[in-house]
């Protein structure tokens, strides 16, 4: 990135040579030219997209149906109230999901013959719940469990739906964690053995810390995905942001509230995405030793 400054030789103050100054000027010009070009290309490209949109014959109707200031304002409090349910759902679900994911992944890593039934359950669980569409899990729990008429089991759709998300995402996260565990270099395991650590100690002190640190970005990725999937709870009658937006739209024949709901979700997911990128880059820098 920056100009290559040579280390000053001992004893005398270093000044860049004519040639070095020229090099720097060339580089600077080059950078400026590329920056300008990038800006120009972007402006033209986005200008073109905007122009095509705004001059298309249907634009006024699209604007009225999707970007109506009046309907955005009218539906905003409703959508915001619904969004609290989305937030409540994923805030409750995420810690449980992480715990479940780690438990399942660690169970699969065990070798003791005594734990075979648990391993079988863990494998069965990940295979089943990764394969079944989340929406079906939500339906099965939200409508199936109350139909069992079990005493003492909640029939509250919010809790049932959130449990369904936990089960579904727990399976994904278990696989992410397992990949993390597998990616820890075998020499680490060998070193732990050489130090006479038990397998449990090895997992707890050597492998999991490295695995989880490495899995930050994909775990955050699943978290973002979970946030959006809280909208699935609507099928049970949980009146969350997206469903409220649709409900408003169904009465007023307008789609603007959906855009309002989208903005709510973006306000959460974009900062998280930036954080994920940042963490990913940091990990990469660490692993490459600079």
């Amino acid at each position, binding site marked *: 990135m920056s100009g290559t400054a040579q280390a000053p030789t001992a004893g005398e103050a270093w000044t860049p040579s004519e040639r070095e100054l020229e090099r720097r000027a060339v580089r600077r010009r080059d950078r400026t030219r590329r*920056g300008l070009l*990038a800006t120009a290309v*972007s402006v033209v*490209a*986005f200008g073109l*997209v905007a122009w095509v949109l705004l001059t298309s014959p*249907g634009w006024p*109707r*699209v604007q009225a*149906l*999707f970007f109506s200031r009046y309907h955005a304002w009218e539906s905003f409090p409703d959508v915001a109230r619904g969004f609290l349910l989305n937030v409540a759902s994923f805030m409750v679900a995420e810690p449980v999901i992480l715990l479940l994911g780690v438990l399942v992944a660690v169970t699969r890593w065990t070798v003791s013959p005594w734990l075979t039934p648990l391993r079988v359950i863990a494998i069965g669980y990940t295979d089943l719940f990764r394969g079944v569409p989340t929406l079906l899990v939500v339906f099965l729990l939200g*409508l199936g469990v*109350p*139909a069992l*008429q079990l005493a003492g089991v909640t*029939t509250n*759709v919010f809790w049932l739906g959130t449990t369904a998300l936990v089960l579904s995402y727990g399976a994904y996260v278990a696989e992410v964690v397992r990949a993390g565990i597998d990616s820890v270099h075998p020499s680490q395991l060998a070193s732990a053995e050489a130090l006479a650590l038990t397998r449990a100690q090895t997992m707890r002190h050597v492998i999991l810390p490295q695995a989880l640190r490495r899995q930050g970005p994909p775990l955050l990725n699943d978290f973002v995905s979970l946030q959006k999937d809280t909208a699935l709870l*609507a*099928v*049970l*009658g949980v*009146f969350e942001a*997206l*469903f409220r937006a*649709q*409900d408003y*739209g*169904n*009465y*007023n*024949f*307008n*789609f603007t509230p*959906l*855009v309002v*709901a*989208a*903005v709510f*979700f*973006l306000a959460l997911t*974009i900062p998280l995405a930036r954080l994920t990128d940042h963490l990913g880059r940091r990990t990469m820098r660490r692993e490459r030793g600079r």
Partner: protein
Amino acid sequence: MRNTRLRGLAVLAAPLLLLTACGSPPATDDGSGGSGGSTEGASAEDCAADLDLTTQGKLTVATDSPAYDPWFSEDDPTNGKGFESAVAYAVADRLGYDKSQVEWVTVPFNNSYAPGPKKFDFDINQISITPERERVVDFSAGYYTASQAVVALERSKIEPGSIEDLTSLKLGAQTGTTSLTALRDVVDPETQPVVLQNTNIAKQQLLNGQLDAIVTDLPTAFYITAAEIEGSTIVGQFEQPEGDAEEFGLLLEKGSDLTPCADDALAELEEDGTLADLQEQWLSTTVDVPVLE
């Protein structure tokens, strides 16, 4: 640089993509006051003689899937059975299209008012006529006026004597329907009304005891109690407020040339008693349901 730009585009596109990915239920509701703007003297058939339709020589009619009883039968709008299927064919007949010239297409309720050209000439899907909606689409004159009914399980022993008695219950209704509007405005229960995406889920939750009762339009309620949920009963109906009758109308593209013709067709069907006969045939009459004040 390029990356951030692309991401910028993605951010712009995200809400749009989100919008295209949303499903929604059919509306089971009753609408309000479209008055038929019938052109005197000319018949509906003359009116529709040389119109530019979705498919030339065909009348394209839309409804949602699933198509619920008693409005349709066996989830098949093409069989002429069920009230709305019968009405659609009767209207087509008046417009000069016989049964073989009627094409059915599936259009989810929330796509029926999407911008852009319509895939259908008219949509028949228990859609209420309301002033807000009329800003976006055309409605024909109303072809049915429904009142609201409360369905509960017999074993729940709910016997409301008045609307007041309903307020302590956990009640649900379908999104986009006047049943839900009535539930919110007329009943105004103590616990938030449960909003559901379609009547099937409402029925299941009623059976599970997750809801005390559901509010639907009366014909749907009759069908649920007669054929769908063993041991369910209609515990009452709301009276239609005087002069506030809500009606279902055919939904057409805003400014469609077909709208006046559909109005003429419905006016003819009203006059010669066809509409009343079809109601008689497909929709139960409101004899022994207690009216809640």
